[in-house]
């Protein structure tokens, strides 16, 4: 079973040289710590920044310089600022190569639910609906099951949708899966996790084809 940092490490293997990447709040943010050496990845923050750097040092926080999670950040050489229309414009136009975000549920067709739980206070979708409707390459980072132990990989999402047919890949604490026309295709399993356990915790259709290697991080 992977911990959050290990999930981020595995996700980082999907980064390619030259990629522009949007990382969501939570585990996806951690991916920035594991960008492979020797490749250049530029982080987009949808509030209007390309070239996001690390958090600032104590005393160097700048109230005018935050990320989409409202955290103080820094910039890297080659960064640029722009307004929110251009920011979502480049997202919609497919200029962002990879989007990694969290989810409450993913369906076997790649639908995603991550913004609303009926009956609870609704905070809003922020930029999530724009991101999932636009990006060509969307990877979800999440726990395989919810705190009650119920599968988050479902035949159909039960929660209100954020977007439809958009998730391409899932990296969970248990496995790496591709979303295919036939369902969730198991690609890799976490060290020490059996195919049986993954099958038991995947409510949607799971395809296991051949031997499944362990995740290498």
């Amino acid at each position, binding site marked *: 079973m992977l911990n959050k940092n290990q999930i981020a490490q595995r996700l980082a293997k999907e980064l390619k040289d030259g990629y522009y990447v949007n990382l969501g709040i939570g585990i996806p943010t951690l991916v920035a710590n594991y960008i492979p050496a020797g490749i250049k990845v530029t982080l987009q923050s*949808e509030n209007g920044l390309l070239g996001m750097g690390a958090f*600032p040092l104590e005393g160097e926080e700048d109230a*005018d310089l935050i990320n989409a999670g409202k955290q*103080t950040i820094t910039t890297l050489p080659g960064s640029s600022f722009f307004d929110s*229309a251009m920011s979502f414009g480049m997202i919609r136009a497919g200029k962002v190569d990879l989007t990694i975000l969290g989810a409450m549920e993913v369906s076997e067709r790649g639908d995603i639910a991550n913004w609303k739980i009926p009956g609870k206070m609704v905070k809003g979708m922020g930029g999530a609906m724009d991101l999932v*409707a*636009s990006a060509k390459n969307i990877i979800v980072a999440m726990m395989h099951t919810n705190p009650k132990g119920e599968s988050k990989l479902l035949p159909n999402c039960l929660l209100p949708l954020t977007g439809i047919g958009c998730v391409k890949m899932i990296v969970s604490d248990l496995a790496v899966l591709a979303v295919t026309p036939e369902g969730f295709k198991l690609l890799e399993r976490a060290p020490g996790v059996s195919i049986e356990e993954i099958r038991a915790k995947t409510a949607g259709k799971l395809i296991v084809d051949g031997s499944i290697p362990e995740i290498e991080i």
Partner: protein
Amino acid sequence: MNKVFDNAATAIADVQDGATIMLGGFGLCGIPENCITAIVKKATKNLICISNNAGVDDFGIGLMLQQKQVKKMIASYVGENAEFERQLLSGELDVELIPQGTLATRCMAAGYGMPAIFTPAGVGTEVAIGKEVRTFNNKEYLLEYAFDADFAFVKAWKGDTDGNLIYKETARNFNPLMAMAGKITIAEVEELVPAGELDANNIHTPGIYVHRIFQGSGYQKRIEQRTVRKT
């Protein structure tokens, strides 16, 4: 033709009850602090506010919510705001949540004279309910309309007496879009300079979009999520 006002109170003096107001900013970053303070003091009621967020309990649009000045909030994310939640659940406050890119683009559409735009955001979700769906190149899009706002309150870093504006870093966000979209756009700036002092090549909002401008004061520029690294 003088666009320069002394302060927020005089600049917003004609905002009436029931007005639709756009407010720039993302979270508490780049919000029109002085205009908000002035509208709270003026106690204008039944406002429809268009803003990406709704402030926090004791700052930003949260101050207007405290005074129950907001009838309807149009936003993409309303975050941590207990009074907001209370008013919403009690039915005092009407809330329309829309995707952030849709919010931004509907502002831009207004400023660019485009009555409506197409966006894929929200297709297949409850955001699409009642909306026209149209397919282009095998992809579905929602038709979304340009906003129609009586006023836009925006905050810039520098401005000149002709209304030209320059924003700083990510405090730009929705400000230039709302500046273009307001029927009357009121800009508050950290530094107001005579026309000609800003580099014409680096203006983010040309003065044609700005009807009133004043130098703000007492900026708090609160940080919502102060996050630092060790070394």
